[in-house]
Structures are given as C-alpha cells and as structure tokens.
C-alpha cells in the first residue's frame, strides 16, 4: 500500500513540475469554462436534431393536427416516440404528463418541453379576432440556443392550424362573419382593424374561388401591419432546478463549468496515460518491475495518482464556480459525483494505459482518443447539433456521463434515482477500465526492451 501511494505522489509531483501537463490539467479547463460560459451568456442561433417532450393537455382535433405536424418535422424529434423499438406504431398514441416530461428534460433526454394546454381547440376559433393559440415551452438552460429555433417552428406549425381551420368552409364562413363584427367592436387600433378586415376579405375571396389549400401562410402585408400580433403565443420558461422552491439555474457558468471540469478530468487521464508511456521509454518502468511491487499494484498506483489529480482539478473548478456565484443544488450528491468522476476517469486512464501505452506514439494516440471522446460526448459541440446516431454513440463517452453527474447535482435537480444512472456508468468505467488496464499492463511492462 505504501508503495502504491509512493507512485501516486511521485506522479503528482511530476505532474506539477511538467508545464504542459499542468496546463492541460489545471489551466485549460478553466480557460475553456470561462470562454464558453462567456459565449453562452447571450447566445442565440440554433442547430438541428432537437428532442422535444410533448405534453398534450387539450387533445382536441386542432391539437392533434398540430402534433402530427410537429412529428412530421425533420429537425424536431417528438417524445414519446410513436414507434416502439421494433419500429411498430404504438396505438393509442402515447402521452406524457408534465411531470414525466420534466423528468426527461432533467435527464437530458429531451432538450425542451412543449405543452399544449387545455383550451387550444377553443382558441383556434378566435384566431381571427386577435386571439392566439397558447403554447407553453420549458427549455433546458444549457440548450438556450435551441429555444429560438423551437419558437420559430411552433409559429410555423401554428400557422398551419390557422390554415386548416380556414379550409373548413362552413366553419370559416361563420368564423369570418363573427370575427368581422367582433373586430368592429374591439379596441384594436384603426390600422390593425384595417389589416384584419383585409385579411378576412382575402379569406372570403379565397373561399369563393375554392382555391383554399391545406396550408396557408401569413399574408406578408397583413402580418407586417399586424405588428406583434401572432396567431401563436408561446410562453417560455427555463427548467428550474429540482422542485418548485429550489434554485433556478442562474447563469451560463453552471453549464460551462461542468464541461470545464470534464476537460480537466480528461487532462488528468491524458497526463497519467502519457506518464506510463514515458516511463516505459525512459526505462523507469523497468525499475518499477524490479521492485517487489506487482504490475497491478503499479497500475493501481497510477490510478490512485490520477484519481487524486481528478479530485484536485474538480476542487479547483468548484472554487471557480462558487466565486462566479454558481450554487450547488445538492452538496452531498455533488461530492459523490466528484468522487465517482475521479474513480470513473481513473478507470478510463487505466484502460487507455493498458490498450495503448505499449504502442509507438502513445501520447499522440491518447490525445486523439480523448478528443474523439470529447467530441462525441458533447465536450466540444453541444450534443443537439449531432445526428441521432451520434447522440446514441455519445453514451460511450465518459464526457457525457461526467457532465451529467455534475449538472444533475448542481442545477438539474436530479433525484437520487435519476442520478443512479450516471453514477452507475461512472462506476462501470472504473471497474471495466481497471480490468482492461490489468490485462494490458503486462504487455506494457514486459514488452519493453
């Protein structure tokens, strides 16, 4: 045991003396977190492949049409899926409650919730009188970039609802007549009244010519004059941490810091993997072999050093987080996440060491693997930009689980049960990593010249 600690502390000492290693473990992650935190502070824009948890509380014909339009969108992925794993259509259409949808959002399975509240059907009838279809969205604060896109999509499909209402001839006739009288009495300003009247007149002439199509788009002139009126009113809020009275995530730091932490963890993994390869070529690994230590003890010494470095880098980033005003939602679970990240990433290091430390150019290979894992795990580009097969692939990346464990305890307010998954995966990385390392270390230590 003494000698395992000796290896761990010797390597930590070397890490602190190695400028490159020190940078990648302790400096880069914090720079990364600060940079990305600053960028996402006021981010806009959007990507594709967004998963939406859908809650339909209305269930009227208009809402059903709206839902099937959403399902038909190529960018949006509506949860729950209509098809089961075998590709068979599930009937009746599966539905989520608000609570279930929130759980999906918290776990990161969905990046936003769309709620169609009761009264959607009734509202569809008042569109021509300045009424609006009401929708609610809840977005993941780390996915703010997508919120804008989602709103655009909801408006687009909202207009379709408008269109299909119009295509129902008798219903429209009645609606238009009703509407005209209501507009006349309403407190809309004269310009708006004019705009609505002309819109309605054009509807009437459309009806007369029988040219109504399933899809109507907004009349440009009309919608310009109508100013900020829109047939769709989307009430958006961000996912609050935990239950109702728990803290809401307040800043982009809460999103960027966990990513910074995981980069730091990966830096530790790299530093220790490379240290084994270097010791191999420097011949000191041979000296370790000559000592009474077994190979597995040497591996454990390296693993321990890596785990300690992981704890240090997490402590450093936690300090930075607290300084930036980020609050930890669940301290006990946060500490568990810190420990499990340390052992999980030490496992990743041992696996990498066992697999590649005996190869030529091990350091380069290790960096390449780390970068790929980071990329597929969402360390460099947010997951939602990726095609779905890649999102699935991201499950093999320790980055994904490391970030999830952190966010889960900082602001996602994940319950014990929800945290079990990332925690178990990290423990899995530790165990499997150790096993792979233990199998590979023989070749690493004996195969040398």
């Amino acid at each position: 045991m003494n000698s395992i600690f000796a290896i761990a502390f010797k390597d930590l000492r070397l890490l602190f003396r190695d400028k490159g290693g020190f940078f990648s473990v302790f400096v880069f992650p914090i720079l990364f977190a600060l940079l990305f935190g600053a960028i996402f502070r006021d981010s806009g824009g959007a990507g594709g492949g967004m998963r939406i948890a859908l809650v339909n509380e209305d269930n009227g014909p208009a809402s059903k049409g709206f839902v099937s339009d959403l399902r038909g969108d190529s960018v949006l992925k509506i949860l729950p899926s209509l098809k089961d794993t075998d590709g068979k259509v599930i009937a009746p259409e599966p539905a989520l409650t608000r609570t279930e949808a929130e759980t999906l959002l918290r776990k990161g399975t969905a990046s936003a919730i769309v709620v169609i509240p009761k009264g959607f059907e009734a509202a569809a009838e008042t569109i021509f009188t300045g009424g609006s279809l009401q929708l609610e969205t809840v977005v993941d604060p780390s996915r703010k970039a997508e919120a804008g896109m989602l709103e655009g999509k909801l408006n687009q499909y909202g207009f379709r609802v408008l269109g299909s209402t119009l295509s129902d001839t008798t219903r429209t006739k009645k609606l238009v007549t009703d509407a005209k009288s209501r507009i006349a009495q309403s407190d809309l300003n004269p310009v708006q009244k004019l705009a609505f009247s002309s819109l309605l007149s054009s509807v009437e002439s459309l009806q007369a010519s029988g040219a109504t199509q399933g899809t109507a788009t907004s009349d440009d002139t009309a919608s310009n004059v109508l100013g900020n009126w829109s047939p769709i009113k989307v009430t958006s809020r961000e996912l609050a941490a935990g239950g109702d009275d728990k803290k809401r995530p307040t800043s982009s730091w809460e999103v960027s810091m966990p990513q910074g932490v995981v980069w730091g963890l990966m830096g530790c993994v790299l530093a220790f993997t490379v240290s084994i390869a270097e010791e191999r070529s420097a011949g000191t690994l041979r000296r370790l072999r000559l000592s009474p230590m077994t190979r597995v003890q040497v591996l454990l010494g390296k693993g321990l050093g890596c785990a300690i470095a992981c704890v240090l880098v997490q402590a450093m980033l936690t300090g930075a987080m607290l300084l930036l005003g980020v609050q930890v939602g669940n301290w006990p679970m946060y500490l568990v996440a810190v420990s499990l990240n340390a052992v999980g990433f030490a496992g990743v290091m041992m696996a990498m060491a066992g697999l590649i430390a005996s190869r030529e150019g091990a350091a380069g290979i290790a960096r390449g693997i780390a970068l790929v894992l980071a990329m597929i795990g969402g360390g460099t580009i947010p997951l939602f930009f990726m095609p779905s097969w890649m999102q699935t692939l991201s499950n093999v990346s320790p980055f994904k689980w490391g970030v999830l464990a952190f966010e889960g305890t900082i602001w996602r307010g994940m319950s014990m049960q929800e945290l079990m998954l990332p925690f178990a995966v990290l423990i899995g990385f530790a165990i499997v990593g150790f096993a792979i390392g233990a199998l590979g270390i023989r070749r690493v230590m004996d195969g040398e010249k």
Partner: protein
Amino acid sequence: MLTLTNLRKHFGPASRRVVAVDGVSLTVRKGEVFGLLGPNGAGKSTTIGMATGLISPDEGTVNIEGAGAPTTSTARLHLGVAPQELALYEQLTGEENLRFFGKLYELSGDALSKRVDTVLELVGLSPRRQDRVVTYSGGMKRRLNLAVALIHDPPLLLLDEPTAGVDPHSRNNLIDVVRKLASEGRTIIYTTHYMEEASKLCDRIAIMDKGKVLAQGTLSELTAAHGGHTVVTVSHGDSQERIETADPLKEIARVMAAGTATNVRIDAPDLESVFLALTGRSMRD
C-alpha cells in the same frame, strides 16, 4: 549465490532472428566480483536481463541462492540492478528519486532517510542531492543510477556497464565505489567492454562474444590458458628483437648479459590477447 544454467534467448521473427544469448551457464560465488566482458552486442545485457527476471529466457534457468527464481518477492529484495540505460526521473531531485524507489521496497521514516544519506555519501552526490536530475552531468547520473540500485541494501548487485559514457575521473570514482561495495561483502556482477576495468576490479571474469561464454576464470587463469606467452622486445640501437617466452626473467637476464641492448620492453599477456586468441579479433574493433 547466483547460478545461470544454459540460458538462451533470441529476438525478432524467424526471418531476422537474432540469437542474443546462446547457451550461457555461469556460477557466481558469494562475495565475489564477477566480470562479464565482451564487445557490443555480445549478449551481456540480455544475460543480465534474464538474471533479473525482466527478460524471460527461451530456455534455461536462473537460480538465486535462498530466493529461487528472480521474480519471487524475496529475490526482488536480494537484487540490486543498475541498468545500462539510465532509468531515473529527470524532473525529480536525486534525493527524491532515491526516496521514491526506497518506498517501493517498503522503506520509510528514519530507516529510509538514513539509507538515502548513506548511498548519496557513497556515490559522492550529497552536495547535489537537492538538484533535479536534469541538471546533472552524465557521470553524476551514472552515479545516481548506481545509488538507486543500492537503496534497499541488496546483497546481490547486477551492474550493467556502470561506467558507460563517463569521463576517467568519474570512472575511477565509480570503480572505487564498486570496490567498497565488494569489501562490504556484496556479490557483484559487473558487465563491461573495458578490459582494464575487468582486470582491476573482478575476481573472476567470463569472456562473452556472440551470445556465448568463450572462457571464464581468474585473470591469471585466463591469461595462462589463452593469453599465450609474454613478449619481450629488445632494442639494439635501431634494430628490434621480439622474443615470446614463458619465462621472461630468464630471457631478460640473457639479453642483459649480451650487453648490446639499449632498451627492453615486457608485454605480459592480458585480456586483449586472450580475446584475440579466442576470437581472432581485437575486442576494440
């Protein structure tokens, strides 16, 4: 103390097969300094590697008295190895290197500190103990490389070219250290391709070439058996007379009696002549 029996080791695939060690058997007695002398590529390091258990032989056995095979944990405590290629942490200080390796042998506290002081003193690195190894000269690194082999006070030392790449001053210093270690009763295997070192230092010597031990014994045994005769070179003014003889004193007496000699040189057979006789090559080639 250490017995190597019929060791064989080859490297590389069948097409480019290199037989590094080809049936080496040696017995090293307790308390002696045993020299393994041979040119580059003779198989010395491979033999040492098998003796330490780092290289597994294709054939043959290694036995350390009282510990068995070199890979057992008892054997690990018995063995002190200074590899030919420096194996040190360059970014640690000399003292930190020693403390680290000491801990691997379960040394700690005062015992460790004492041992660190002792070996630093022995190899003459005490003044530089707080400096990082990168800042050491080649000779100093060599000395530290030897010191690390001694940290756990092992009775059996395997020193693979401990003076490689070192200036004459450091070399003499290292040779003194090895003498001192021998005087403490340690058993030492010392590989070198310097004949002077082998003759100065070793009680017995094995001459290796191309993976085989060609001859072994004390210096005088080797020269007597393979060195040929002493050569007496007599100068008579400008002309020289070369006399090979088993009894140089008698020849010199004869030459002196003749009274024409202006100079006399005596070349006793040495390891060079032994190697030449055994291989037909000079070892310096």
